[in-house]
């Protein structure tokens, strides 16, 4: 049982909180959280790679990625630091498109990024219309501080799984902890189950 906090009252609800996972609150802005300096890779040196448990690694240049069919994605996003933002609008290429025709026995992927960040995900969490390589936000190119030129977007999991500055995914047999997952954060990070930290 949580103790009642003397005199604490809820603030006027600022929107529809039926869409808020437990322990989350709504924000209007788009807070930024990252562990180091923002990388700035020139687009002519940018590639996206799928490697690991695949016969031949796949690689796209920026222009090749942008030539693939892109989708608008409207979703709610949830940060483990307890803010959520509803109805965000993104544009990106579905991982299904990138993995189309790939035969793999992988059960997990590790996303890797400029700046050295990594995050691990079960392959079911990045397929079947649940994950994108996103390069547009709110009708504009994705800002570097929010992960531009491109970030992973996996909106059904806490936002640290939506790796900023993503450059590739490695198909893996095992669930190797990524950057935050090795530092105390949950391996899967489902906001509706409030999987914030180890053991949640």
């Amino acid at each position, binding site marked *: 049982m*949580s*103790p*009642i*906090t*003397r*005199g*604490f*009252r*809820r*603030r006027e609800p600022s929107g529809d909180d039926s869409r808020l996972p437990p*322990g989350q*609150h*709504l*924000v*209007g*802005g*788009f*807070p*930024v*959280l*990252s*562990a*180091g*300096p*923002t990388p700035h890779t020139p687009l002519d040196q940018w590639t996206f790679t799928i490697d690991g448990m695949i016969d031949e690694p796949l690689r796209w240049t920026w222009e090749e990625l942008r030539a693939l069919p892109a989708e608008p994605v409207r979703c709610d996003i949830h940060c483990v*630091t*307890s*803010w959520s933002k509803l109805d965000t609008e993104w544009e990106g290429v579905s991982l299904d498109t990138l993995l189309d025709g790939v035969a793999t026995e992988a059960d997990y992927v590790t996303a890797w990024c400029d*700046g*050295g960040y990594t995050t691990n995900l079960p392959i079911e969490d990045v397929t079947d219309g649940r994950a994108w390589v996103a390069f547009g936000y709110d009708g504009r190119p994705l800002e570097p*501080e929010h992960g531009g030129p491109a970030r992973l977007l996996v909106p059904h999991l806490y936002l640290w799984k939506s790796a900023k500055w993503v450059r590739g995914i490695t198909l893996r*047999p*095992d*669930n190797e*902890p990524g*950057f*935050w997952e*090795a*530092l*105390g954060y949950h*391996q899967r990070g489902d906001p509706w189950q409030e999987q*914030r*930290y*180890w*053991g*949640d």
Partner: protein
Amino acid sequence: MAGAALLGRLTPPPALRWQIARVVSVRAETPRAITLALDVPEWPGHRAGQHVDVRLTAEDGYRAQRSYSIASPPLASVLEITVERLEDGEVSPWLAREAEPGDELELRGPIGGYFVWEPARGGPLLLIAGGSGLVPLMGIERLRRAATPELASTLLVSARSPEELIYAEELEGAVVTYTREPPPGWTGYARRVDRAMLAEVAPPPEQRPHCYVCGPTSFVEVVAEALVALGHHRALIKTERFGATGG
């Protein structure tokens, strides 16, 4: 596929449980910020730079939680957090205005294993704070002063005015810049932190200082990019950002 070692590594460590924390004292830092000293009976200890989640429960059962940086160094007898009241906040106004000794709240932690410093990591240290971003950096600086006072540390603090400067009595030797209202007769920096200021204040990149930058997003972006431009090693620049998290 999964060997014993792998299984062992993936066995989840004990959960971070919510604990009852009792407010021991409330200290005003500025008109908008207070430091709460908390008695947490089963506190497992923490590393300088980590944070906690705090949860408040209303009479109708409504609960709200937010993250706050730990200000006290490891091994201090009580856990301290410094909280700045956000005008449109929900949790911070209660903590900063209502909390009194004897009040109970819920807390879990410590959280975060990246933006941390331990004496074994050595130095020199370069700590750069914007506003209440000073809180985790003071946790680091207090540890350095207690454990390895001989280790060089540069602390650069950006505040709007003297009135808004937290921990002022502990900032002797720190470089302070006032961005809005410097005190009368002030001869120090009176502008936002920029590359030229960092070039003057920071140890040279060849000394490979461990850089910790904490503050609002725009502050952190500018400072981290300037450090990179000055030749500081990206891997040695750790950042933590206080966005509009609705506190």
